[in-house]
């Protein structure tokens, strides 16, 4: 048993209730101001600098251990590593051979339609810090912050594909929300047939889902999902995941589709923060034509897929639009992806045709 020593001679704390109420009101005010007005960004940035030493202190033993292990690696292990890396590099170079040509071709085709949606411009690499954030939210802390130019809503990739996006920026660090977070959604496209939909996180690191596909949708296990670039938050054409399982229940109108993320969400140590080329003013109109090919290849499904999210999406879609992008100027640009407007797709090309 623990015997507490009575340290207060009086045994009474004067104004306990008053102070409790005051502090609670202050906290409530903070919550409301932080939620409603986005004015606390600077304060939070300063506070995050204060928190930085704690995070560094916690992360450093693990980094020290990594460093120690690296420095005592044997020659043989290093040679094996080198051979493996060389093999990987050869493969990557082989794949890259046609990349330049393809990129030029894509740029030319895009130029024809004066659309620069989702073309990556430059990137920086950040390290994930060995710090646990919330156990129930899938977020990681990365050692790049406002001073490196990182902004809220920025797309983050790893070696395998799309990793997530920046949810909050501190001066020296930033928080990245993973694709698999239950409040995250990303506009995607099936690489095989161009079918557009939205991939939503499940809160489980190894799994995403496509909740807005009808049972009749043309999707099979093994399909590669890539970013569609709609909404402007993510660059187009980066792998998001592969379809792991499709469950079709004839009694339901929507299929249950599980997706395995392409990025190593639980293993990556290094992430890429991506900047996209500034978009032309005509982005809004040029997004619609991008959306047409799927309608051409799979008319009934695509039309359906585009219109289904409207009634079912709001809870998730709203989060997707609100949480990560609320502070950024991209909020407006993201909206079309989250609350799908691609329904307009058929009308836009007609308007363009008229204009010409």
């Amino acid at each position, binding site marked *: *048993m*623990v*015997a*507490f*020593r*009575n*340290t*207060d*001679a009086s*045994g009474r*704390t004067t104004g*306990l*209730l008053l*102070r*409790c109420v005051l*502090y*609670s009101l*202050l*906290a*409530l*005010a*903070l*919550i409301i*101001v*932080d*939620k409603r007005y986005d004015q*606390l960004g600077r*304060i*939070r940035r300063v*506070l*995050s600098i*204060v*928190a930085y030493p*704690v*995070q560094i*202190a*916690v*992360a450093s033993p*693990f980094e020290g251990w990594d460093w120690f292990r690296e420095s005592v690696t044997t020659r043989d292990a290093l040679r094996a590593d080198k051979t493996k890396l060389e093999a990987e590099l050869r493969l990557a170079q082989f794949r890259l051979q046609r990349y330049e040509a393809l990129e030029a071709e894509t740029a030319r085709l895009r130029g024809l339609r004066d659309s620069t949606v989702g073309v990556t411009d430059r990137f920086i690499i950040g390290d994930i810090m*060995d*710090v*646990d*954030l*919330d*156990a*129930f*939210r899938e*977020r990681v802390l990365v050692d790049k912050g406002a001073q490196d130019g990182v902004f809220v809503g920025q797309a983050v990739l790893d070696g395998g594909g799309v990793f997530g996006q920046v*949810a*909050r920026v501190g001066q020296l660090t930033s*928080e990245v929300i993973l694709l698999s977070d*239950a*409040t995250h959604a990303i506009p995607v496209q099936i690489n095989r047939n161009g079918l557009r939909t939205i991939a939503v996180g499940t*809160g489980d*690191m190894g799994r995403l889902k496509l909740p807005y596909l009808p049972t009749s949708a043309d999707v099979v296990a093994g399909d590669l999902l890539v970013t569609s670039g709609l909404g402007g938050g993510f660059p187009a054409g980066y792998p998001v995941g592969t379809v792991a399982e499709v469950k079709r229940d004839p009694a339901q109108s929507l299929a249950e589709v599980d997706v395995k993320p392409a990025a190593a969400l*639980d293993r990556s140590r290094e992430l890429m923060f991506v900047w996209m080329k500034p978009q032309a003013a005509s982005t809004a109109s040029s997004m619609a034509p991008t959306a047409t090919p799927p309608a051409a290849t799979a008319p009934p499904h695509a039309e359906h897929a585009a219109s289904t999210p409207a009634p079912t999406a709001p809870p998730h879609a*709203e*989060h997707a639009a*609100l*949480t990560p992008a609320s502070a950024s100027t991209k909020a407006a640009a993201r909206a079309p992806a989250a609350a799908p407007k691609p329904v307009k797709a058929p009308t836009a090309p007609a308007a363009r045709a008229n204009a010409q």
Partner: protein
Amino acid sequence: MMRDTRIRRLPMALSALVALALAVLPLPVALDAFRPDFLVLVVFYWSIVSPRAGGLTLAFVSGLALDVIHGVVLGQHALALTLMAGWATHLRLRLRVFSMLSQCLTIFALLTGYQFVLFWVDGATGNPVTTFGRWLAPVIGALLWPLLAGTLSRLHER
């Protein structure tokens, strides 16, 4: 009296810092949900033992630190921690004479209240976390209480 409280602030701040570090210490994903709220327990301890040394201020500041570190809406943990530390301070005279079992049960109630406030603010600000995992922390925290209170009292009463 004044000197008394001044002496006591150092262990208070130190234990809070250590607890804060424990709150962000990386754990395997499987164990992450079992992480007890160390900082909350430490704040309860100081609210019970020496409320005069600024238990509520400690609660508020620790709460803010948790908000920043967890990256949630600013004020969430501060609100929950202030309310529950206030309650703990109110109960302190009774808590000191309770048996260990009753102490643990009271701490369990306080931790559950804490989680409930967090849950409520989460819901009110539009990112609800509805997994049952979060209700596990109070149980583990209450089980850990005897150990933590014993360690802290041994450290600061020397």
